[in-house]
């Protein structure tokens, strides 16, 4: 069995160690004997939704996001929508998450159009939200937690029909106001969690891998469990640290 992971704009949207998510997906597949191939898709490259099993879209700096937004709208939008409608597994972080929303509004009121995969929009905020984050996920009813690290000045708001990935137990989350973090649509996820996200949250990495396997190889597919003692210890360690310190936040841009 084989899964193809399409990595969007690896040369432009690669900030804050998000490639750790790619590494995690690849290893967790290989450790189960599932072949994993990573295909980089940059500016001008079309996305073939039949070839992709998982799509990953990381964060970047403002200048890079402008270039990417244009390409996203004109070259990749259609295929991404089609992929997600079919139940394709997608993970987007920070800048990637913002660009998959409806739009981003800058300090000066300029609108940067997204592709509206998530019914969400982002406005530039006046403070930087930085620190360790603890989220309780409710998208699958499991109540499992995610730990990560956020660093964003954008504030994302969800439309009335848009489900968040989870509720903030500690941190700012989407906007520091409504207690939500991230957004979900079918098997597409967007959130502000770096860390990287997947290594310390192996259950979520497996959630994505399983969704991808089932889409390609049938609903009967299951994943053999792995020994996640180290990953879970890391998860616990951070959760405890957050509990002791509260947020570590500098707040000011």
């Amino acid at each position, binding site marked *: 069995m084989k899964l193809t992971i399409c990595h969007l704009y690896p040369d*432009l949207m690669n900030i804050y160690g998000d490639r*750790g998510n790619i590494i995690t997906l690849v290893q967790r597949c290989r450790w189960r004997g599932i072949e994993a191939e990573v295909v980089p898709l940059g500016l001008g490259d079309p996305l073939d939704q039949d070839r992709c099993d998982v799509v990953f879209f990381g964060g970047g700096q403002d200048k890079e996001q402008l270039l990417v937004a244009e390409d996203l709208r004109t070259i990749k939008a259609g295929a991404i929508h089609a992929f997600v409608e079919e139940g394709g597994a997608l993970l987007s972080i920070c800048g990637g998450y913002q660009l998959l929303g409806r739009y981003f509004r800058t300090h000066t009121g300029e609108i940067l159009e997204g592709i509206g995969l998530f019914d969400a929009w982002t406005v530039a905020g006046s403070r930087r939200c930085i*620190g360790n984050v603890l989220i309780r996920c409710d998208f699958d009813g499991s109540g499992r937690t995610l730990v990560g690290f956020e660093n964003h000045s954008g504030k994302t708001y969800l439309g009335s029909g848009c489900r968040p990935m989870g509720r903030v137990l500690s941190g700012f989350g989407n906007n520091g106001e409504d207690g939500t973090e991230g957004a979900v649509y079918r098997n597409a996820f967007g959130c502000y969690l770096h860390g990287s996200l997947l290594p310390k949250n192996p259950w979520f990495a497996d959630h994505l891998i399983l969704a991808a396997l089932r889409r390609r190889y049938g609903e009967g597919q299951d994943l053999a469990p792995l020994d996640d003692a*180290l990953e879970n210890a890391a998860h616990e360690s951070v959760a405890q640290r957050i509990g002791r310190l509260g947020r570590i936040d500098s707040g000011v841009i």
Partner: protein
Amino acid sequence: MHLRLAAAVTAGRLATMMSRHLGVGGGTTAPGHLVRALYPAATASIAARLPQGSVLVTGTNGKTTTSRMISSVLRKAGLQVLHNRSGANLISGIASALVNGSTISGRPKADVGLFEVDEAAFPAAVAELRPRLCVLTNLFRDQLDRYGEVDFLWGLWHETLSALPESSTVLLNADDPRVAELGTDLACRVLHYGIEDESIGGSALAHASDSRFCLRCGAAYQYRAVFYSHLGHYHCPSCGAVRPQPFLRAAGCQLGVHGSRVRVEWPSGNMSVEVRVPGLYNVYNALAAVGVGVAMELEPETIQSGLSDFAAAFGRVEQVDIRGRRLFLALVKNPVGFNEVLSTILRDPGEKAMMIVINDLFADGTDVSWLWDVDFEMLAGRVLFVVASGLRAHDMAVRLKYAGVEPSRILVEAASAAALDRALEATPDGGTLYLLPTYTAMLEVRKLLVDAGHLSPFWED
């Protein structure tokens, strides 16, 4: 005598003495805060009285090592150097150094000032110190939670350099496109340094994420040779922008595990220098130091000899004998530096005994996501064991597991004292333990070693 300045200087020096006497620290930054609170213009006043002005060094990697190399060269030339040697490189650290190196009346007891400066503090430092020479080593993403974005920093730096008078000089790394570009439209003298010897480079970038984009037209630079990360011989295929020809170049390099030999050339001369610390990144640091010597018109033999005198800076790379083993200590702060340290260690064959200590306090960078940008994959099959320690020991252990290091060889021991004991025990007799800590972890480890008598305290270095 300017009474307010004298009072500030006195207070600062008392604070320093007390700090060291009471063992609460090295007295390298708190006195500076005190001085600036009492008399804000103290820094500028003292610095203005340095007969030969100041040399500032900034950049992401190499500030401390480059500064120490420059210090060695300047002292060889017979100059008394006022230098924030301990590496306290914010304005407060520079102020402390100035106060402790001057008389009560605020007259510096030195010929020339030499300051390594934190990237974000650089603009303010230039404004107050009005340096004769600024060295900019490189620009990488480091501790993003502190500096926000690299582009913003670049803008600040360019604005700062544009304000330098014709009588000042900037020395820029030609091989780093972002740093080299800082030299455009400046009024002051602009000199570049770089490596010419393409044989020691690779033909392509190791990571897509090392890509850099033309500052003029946005196209991705292409490289004829890559030395490390995004440093190399680049050009823009779209608008023709190209790496500037360096004034000072490394024409030939021989790299070894204990150091390198470099053939250096510049318009009016050439010589062979010995760099007594290993790694390509130290070749760049040495080139910058030679560049300072040449820009200040020192004798080549003096520069060469000063560089040969150089011994590794506090905590950056140090070797200590302890309990029948050798301890190799190298500070790690960001992906590029970490990769270079790992490559250097792995240059010799065999399995390595290692201890990596990761903290996430303010000075270390609170976001440890950067560990996923380090190529720990090169350690797979090359380690005897790794003890993962520090506040983020578990994060480090997980990173190693996903890098392909056998889980049975990954030991987690968060407390550094216990970790050091365990790591030394597990290191074969006569073998080397490679200890790689982040900044605050380095301070902790050093304290353990100093208390046990293996190292001298950092301010005496």
